[in-house]
């Protein structure tokens, strides 16, 4: 192949050379070239090797639809060379051939592998002996696939993101019909987005003599305020969201109305050797010549089933390609006007003939043409060989209906068009252009205008004049010749004779014989055939092969194509990198107002639910001891915090919790365990009564959202006079705990913190270090302590003030890990760790919290009454391990017969100098001193049950 002289409408900038490498060899290109066109200009005809048989393949469609030109570009596999623009210095390499593209050892599968790789060979071969499967798997995995990914990648190197776009009208397809639709809709005042796969608007016209008109129309589209996304592939249709991939962005487009102007796809023909480099679609050859100034061949044979093949022959002839012959499969041939043009051009053409074989090894060197009978089968002894280096084929066109079908439209077989046309599109979706079956330029243009107007009017835009104009346009359209003048392309002309293969599916190397074979085996429906042979499952996704496969099925089963139908259309319609679908990683994380201070203090920050929290500050044992010996300060801002206010607030809480809150006095605190309808523990926390009508409820950190939802749900159901406000993130909270905590806090506040004035379970309001606080005297960690809740904006000042005041006393910050040890010493549960979905408060050793003598009903009452009636079966108890070993959390409690319980928490206590824990055990073992055995990763540990707190069981330190 070589460069043609400059052509009108070409994409090239001949003054800007660009160099890249292909398999290490430098290739000179021009700005505007694609990798494929540059390689073609350079004489490189073979671009890839096919999937299964490793047959050489070359440019065919030049529009990104077929699989023949997949290459690796700068380490990215699966790039279509025919649409990838050249860049200076890009490194292009072949795929799927070893050791080289020129000589591929795996071509042996084509010559010798047929017995081992029949259709569906994965169900037949490489199965026995079964013990060799690991070897088969390794061999097959190495042999299969196209392209190689990087084995290991330390971090994401490609930034991708989502972009959400709303529009009044989304037009999919930037050919004439799409542009007409966009213009018309914009004219009616719609906010229009137009997406098109190509690098510029204009579609197929860009490669024709009408390229200038097409480009001019594209400029008008931009001037009309339409947002144009070029190089943008619509991937699917998801309940009104159309994802469109362009570059590094996935546009999620939500439109009120849609126009599908997705065009049609030229189809190949089935004959022996139809995959040889040098066999191209007519449109592909035209694009190569018209857009990129590369001659697709010196001498061509054109095989066609429709007028477009002849038009293409004329265009190629005008570009300097000698047309040796046109084989028109139609018995009657083209219309008179076209016939005369072909004759005037001096081109020999024959009706009722077809190419039955392409000749050559590694590339086309000739074609065999034969006459066809009335059934489209070639007549023996009529073959004639013609020397050529290009076979340009046009097997008709197939409307690109996949997106429409995904959206809910039906596919209707149209005999005249010889294709499935979209039918019954859902409301809000309009169809225009070739995809709707319109063939003439006038009809395509008119259909676009009609669709655009319909879309805009359907969403309330435009007025009566526009409606009148639409009716006139519709009338014009109905008068315009729009049926696609094509004959039904001949099916594969008999079985392959000689040694050639006739490919129905280029992607998966499925031949026409393979299809017949599979049908003989019983896979005689298109859906079954697809799954068995993998036809239509390759990179083209059926663009090139679905209709030929359907015709073959119809032919072999004696049915009609209409009866055969199509396979289900599914997204993505175009191949799309997973990185694009992933988008930007969003990892929501909550951080407290003193998070910065935690990091400065050396906190080991980890995930705790959806919060980032310090687990310790580098010395969990020391932090634990500080709480016992002086004072510790922990950030508990992550707790859920709810304001429950109203005249029925107490009654509301009474219904939600198993204990009473109407008897709680203002300024006092009570522990609460929340349960569900089945009496199972779902959360716990404290409830402080602020005044007669106001309560301050805390929850676990990870349960905050669920508790708020639970409260809101029941409030909506019960319609009580209660207001619920979530202040979880608005208030910071710190727990200052330890024997010196009173001394520390007293220096920061005017509040009387004596034990008499501020007793255990009191809640008081005061300024601490100038900060307005709600102080709760509670004790999760077992020492004298105060929980200070304050506005988050003042949290850092409060933390710093407490730390400064406590420094002379040896205060230390402590994290989640020391807190876990401290609370375990007191047998305080962690909901979700020490409890599960079956745990109720009675069996969790909290019978005192369940007030079955409450007059009013409460959530889970009947279930708890049931438990009380039947008696507890399992109990949550504490245990100690004598030898100091710490069982893993989750270790089983075992008896002779097997496991009967499990360890929920376990730690070594530096204060008590022994291993302590909590476990669920059968009620018979739930007695102080009972011996239990723990099975932990193969070892057995002897433990003793303890039902009272390990540390300060009489709460003298806590209440002192």
């Amino acid at each position: 192949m070589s460069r043609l002289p400059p052509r009108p409408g070409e994409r090239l900038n001949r003054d800007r050379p660009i160099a890249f490498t292909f398999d290490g060899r430098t290739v000179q290109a021009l700005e505007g070239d694609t990798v494929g066109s540059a390689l073609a200009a350079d004489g490189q005809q073979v671009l890839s090797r096919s999937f299964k048989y490793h047959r050489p393949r070359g440019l065919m469609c030049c529009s990104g639809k077929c699989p023949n030109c997949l290459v690796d570009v700068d380490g990215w596999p699966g790039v279509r060379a025919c649409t990838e623009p050249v860049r200076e210095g890009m490194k292009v390499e072949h795929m799927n051939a070893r050791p080289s593209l020129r000589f591929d050892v795996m071509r042996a599968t084509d010559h010798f592998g047929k017995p081992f790789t029949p259709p569906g060979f994965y169900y037949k071969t490489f199965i026995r002996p079964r013990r060799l499967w690991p070897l088969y798997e390794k061999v097959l995995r190495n042999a299969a696939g196209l392209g190689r990914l990087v084995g290991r990648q330390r971090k994401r190197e490609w930034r991708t993101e989502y972009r959400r776009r709303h529009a009044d009208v989304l037009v999919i397809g930037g050919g004439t019909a799409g542009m007409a639709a966009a213009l018309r809709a914009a004219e009616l005042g719609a906010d229009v987005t137009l997406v098109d796969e190509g690098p510029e608007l204009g579609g197929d016209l860009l490669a024709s003599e009408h390229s200038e008109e097409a480009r001019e129309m594209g400029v008008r589209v931009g001037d009309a305020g339409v947002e144009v996304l070029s190089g943008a592939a619509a991937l699917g249709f998801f309940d009104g969201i159309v994802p469109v991939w362009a570059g590094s962005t996935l546009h999620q487009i939500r439109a009120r109305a849609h126009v599908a102007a997705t065009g049609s796809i030229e189809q190949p023909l089935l004959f022996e050797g139809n995959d040889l480099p040098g066999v191209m679609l007519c449109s592909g050859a035209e694009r190569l010549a018209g857009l990129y100034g590369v001659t697709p061949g010196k001498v061509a044979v054109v095989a066609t089933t429709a007028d477009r093949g002849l038009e293409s022959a004329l265009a190629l002839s005008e570009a300097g390609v000698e047309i040796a012959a046109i084989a028109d499969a139609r018995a009657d041939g083209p219309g008179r006007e076209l016939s005369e043009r072909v004759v005037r051009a001096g081109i020999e053409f024959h009706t009722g003939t077809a190419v039955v074989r392409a000749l050559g090894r590694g590339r086309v060197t000739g074609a065999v043409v034969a006459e066809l009978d009335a059934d489209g089968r070639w007549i023996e002894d009529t073959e004639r060989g013609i020397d050529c280096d290009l076979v340009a084929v046009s097997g008709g066109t197939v409307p690109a209906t996949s997106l429409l079908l995904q959206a809910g439209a039906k596919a209707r077989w149209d005999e005249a068009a010889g294709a499935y046309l979209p039918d019954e599109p859902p409301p809000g979706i309009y169809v225009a252009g070739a995809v709707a079956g319109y063939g003439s330029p006038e009809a395509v243009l008119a259909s676009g205008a009609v669709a655009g107007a319909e879309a805009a009017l359907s969403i309330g835009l435009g007025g009566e004049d526009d409606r009148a104009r639409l009716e006139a346009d519709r009338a014009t359209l109905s008068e315009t010749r729009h049926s696609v003048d094509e004959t039904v392309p001949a099916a594969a002309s008999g079985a392959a004779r000689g040694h050639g293969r006739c490919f129905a599916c280029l992607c998966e190397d499925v031949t026409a014989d393979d299809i017949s074979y599979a049908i003989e085996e019983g896979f005689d429906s298109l859906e079954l055939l697809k799954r068995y042979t993998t036809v239509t499952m390759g990179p083209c996704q059926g663009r090139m092969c679905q209709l030929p496969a359907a015709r073959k099925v119809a032919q072999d089963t004696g049915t009609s194509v209409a009866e055969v139908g199509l396979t289900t259309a599914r997204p993505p319609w175009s191949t799309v990198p997973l990185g694009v679908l992933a988008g930007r990683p969003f990892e929501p994380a909550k951080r407290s107002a003193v998070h910065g201070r935690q990091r400065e203090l050396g906190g080991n920050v980890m995930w705790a639910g959806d919060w980032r929290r310090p687990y310790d500050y580098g010395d969990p044992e020391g932090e634990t001891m500080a709480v016992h010996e002086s004072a510790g300060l922990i950030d508990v801002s992550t707790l859920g915090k709810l304001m429950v206010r109203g005249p029925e607030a107490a009654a509301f809480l009474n219904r939600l919790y198993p204990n009473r809150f109407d008897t709680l006095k203002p300024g006092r605190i009570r522990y609460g365990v929340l349960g569900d309808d089945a009496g199972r523990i779902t959360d716990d926390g404290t409830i402080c009564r602020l005044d007669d009508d106001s309560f301050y409820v805390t929850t676990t950190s990870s349960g905050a959202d669920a508790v708020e939802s639970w409260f809101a749900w029941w409030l909506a159901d019960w319609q009580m006079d209660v207001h619920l406000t979530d202040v979880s993130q608005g208030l910071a909270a710190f727990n200052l705990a330890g024997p010196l905590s009173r001394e520390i806090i007293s220096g920061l506040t005017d509040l009387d913190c004596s034990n008499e004035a501020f007793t255990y379970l009191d809640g008081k309001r005061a300024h601490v270090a100038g900060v307005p606080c709600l102080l709760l005297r509670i004790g999760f960690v077992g020492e004298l302590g105060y929980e200070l809740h304050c506005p988050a904006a003042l949290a850092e000042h409060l933390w710093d003030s407490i730390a400064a005041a406590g420094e002379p006393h040896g205060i230390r910050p402590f994290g989640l890990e020391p807190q876990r040890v401290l609370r375990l010493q007191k047998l305080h549960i962690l909901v979700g760790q020490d409890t599960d979905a079956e745990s109720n408060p009675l069996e969790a050793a909290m019978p005192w919290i369940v007030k079955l003598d409450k007059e009013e009903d409460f959530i889970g009452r009947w279930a708890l009454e049931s438990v009380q009636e039947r008696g507890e079966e399992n109990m949550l108890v504490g245990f100690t391990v004598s030898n100091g070993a710490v069982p893993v959390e989750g270790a089983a409690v075992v008896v002779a017969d097997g496991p009967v319980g499990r360890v929920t928490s376990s730690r070594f206590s530096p204060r008590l100098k022994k291993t302590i824990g909590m476990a669920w055990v059968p009620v018979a073992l739930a007695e102080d001193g009972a011996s239990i055995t723990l099975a932990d990763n193969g070892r057995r540990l002897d433990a003793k049950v303890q039902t009272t707190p390990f540390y300060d069981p009489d709460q003298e330190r806590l209440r002192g």
Partner: protein
Amino acid sequence: MSFEFLAPDSAVAFEGAMPPLRSPVEWVHRDGSASYAERAGWRLVADYGDPAGEAAACQSSVGVADLSHLGKLEIQGEAEAVSGIVASLAEGSVSLGQATLSHGVWWCPITPRRTLAVTPPEATARVRGELEAATADAAFISVCEQTTSFGSNAVVGPLARETFARSTALDMRPDVFVEGAFAPASVARIPGMVLRVGTDSFLHLFGSGYANYVWSVFVDAAEHLGGRAVGVDALSGEARLDA
């Protein structure tokens, strides 16, 4: 018992100085080149060392500024009662989807029963007092201080909508999301609220615990579009919600 413990402006002097009020991302900016200023007791980032560039970003691309110091007050009650109170104080009614600006205060209806008043920090105490007075005799309406429950960012500039488009599906087209439009929405996978305060100016509200996360998401998106983080001085008075 009072609810002062919810209100950051209820702080009193300690050791001769008022405790400083800090936004939930104030600590993040200490690592960079931020210049701080004090406003109504709040430590704010005035600029990031390039005031001219930051102002230019707000005019030509997009600027993201931390406005977490804005006051937020939640009024909750029966729909009719809430709308009546709000109408009297806002000197105009509010309806779902549309907030009302009155004397520097944005009255934002979250649900028919719940309205959020977004105030300049100097006005928060006054508005809270007005609300408490207005609701004192009303049947069961509660006023709750929520200033520190929500972080807030201003996203300002011709590319503000594009910045939001990276993390929300809210339709923010000018003709759809008009000036004063207010909507709860999922933004960056968390619950949020968006208010359009000007031609290309938006206020984004979110749980203050997420402030650092939201800040990093939006600044990243802005920078990718050619914008940047900006201090409050780069914003117009309208975008800053000046009193």
